[in-house]
């Protein structure tokens, strides 16, 4: 039994390229996802049912169904209705909607965490609703929103591996392709795992060393 664990430099570069695609994909999804999340999250806090209900439905459905199914539906089903979905678009859209739902829920929780007393104080000082939101609610809500959102980014990097199943070439797909050529599944998947580890562990170290300190200080000065 010969264990050849050497990976050709060309293959390493291919994997690194895949990792780059993963990073780009995740950043893209976070960007659009946060935009969606803002809309949906704010809508979730609305008092009118017409606005709140679709947002809640969207979040509940996305969070209650497998990401894989969401990707399949976008990639395999939309073309049936004439919408042509190239792989990268399916991947990006799928992950963006996925992110939007989770971040939306985080934003909703963040907005609701701001003490009602804060809003009352703002109003009694004569501020209009948008001022109240921008200067009083949002800054305080952000402190509660940013840490879990960053945590979601770390999870997203891992979840992005699912787009390999619809054939999009990111890190996992790249490693699968090299395996098909070299027949060394352990070596290659381990390499992919290591690259994911570097990304995720790196992000979580940043979280612990920097983010936590910046966003955990109590706002009441204690």
């Amino acid at each position, binding site marked *: *039994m010969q*264990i050849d664990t050497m990976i050709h430099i060309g293959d390493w570069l291919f994997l690194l390229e895949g990792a780059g695609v993963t990073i780009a994909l995740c950043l893209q999804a976070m960007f659009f996802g946060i935009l969606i999340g803002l809309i949906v999250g704010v809508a979730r806090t609305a008092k009118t049912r017409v606005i709140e209900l679709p947002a809640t439905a969207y979040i*509940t*459905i996305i969070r*209650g*169904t*497998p*990401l*894989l*199914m*969401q990707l*399949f*539906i976008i990639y*395999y*089903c939309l073309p*049936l*209705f*004439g919408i042509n979905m190239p792989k990268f678009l399916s991947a990006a859209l799928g992950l963006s909607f996925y992110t939007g739902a989770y971040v939306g829920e985080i934003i909703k929780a963040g907005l609701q965490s701001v003490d009602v007393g804060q809003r009352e104080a703002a109003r009694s000082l004569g501020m209009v609703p948008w001022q109240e939101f921008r200067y009083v609610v949002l800054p305080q809500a952000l402190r509660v929103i940013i840490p879990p959102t960053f945590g979601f980014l*770390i999870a997203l990097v*891992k*979840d992005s*591996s*699912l787009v*390999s*199943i619809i054939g999009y070439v990111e890190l*996992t797909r790249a*490693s*699968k392709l090299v*395996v098909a050529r070299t*027949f*060394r*599944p*352990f*070596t290659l*998947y*381990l390499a*992919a*795992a290591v690259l*994911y*580890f570097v990304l*995720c*562990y790196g992000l*979580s170290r940043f979280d612990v060393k920097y983010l936590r300190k910046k966003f955990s200080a109590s706002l009441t000065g204690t």
Partner: protein
Amino acid sequence: MGYTIHFTEVFPYLPLLLKGLLLSVAITVVSTLIGTLAGLFSALASLSHYLIARKTANTYVEIFRNTPLLVQMYLIYFGLGQFGVQINPIPAAIIAMTLNTGAYTTVIFQAGIQAVDVGQKEGGLVLGMTYPQTFRHVILPQAFRIIFPPLVNQAISLFLFSAVASTITVPELTHQAMFVDSVTWRTFEVFIVTTCLYFACTFLVSILSDLYERTRPAR
């Protein structure tokens, strides 16, 4: 180019889909049970006095929390083949899902245990109870309240990600859905029905766990 929707063509295959769903539930439940137990021990190890226990537990947790479940499954099902070891799809999926769950539940347990007031621990110790007794009768029951919701979320999440087991040929729900699609060509209908089945399960579990939480005495 129109596509007419015919759900009726999928209905004969519903039993097959349900069989797949049953398997999805089964592998999730098994992995959750074993994984949660493993997580408890791992959490205790990570909080122990012995450096080697702490380091082992923490290393395990970091490895399995910072790599995707999909890659973990590939490593076990395909990867071990490089050494001539071939594990069957279902056991391979369960092993990967269990190891994954163990890492996540470790963190949940750590948070829960540390959230219990240190005074409770001292309250037990001063009565002459040993630390294991105090842990079992005083700390753990109170940590449970904090631990329960995240544990349920973890189980639901695992259930949703069990879909990736289809890629290592486990005949769970997603795999069956792809089969039905290949036979009926009713891709949209099949996937919608499948998604609804997943959703029904998670929705049910959420409701049940909400109800359960409400029955616990207020403290």
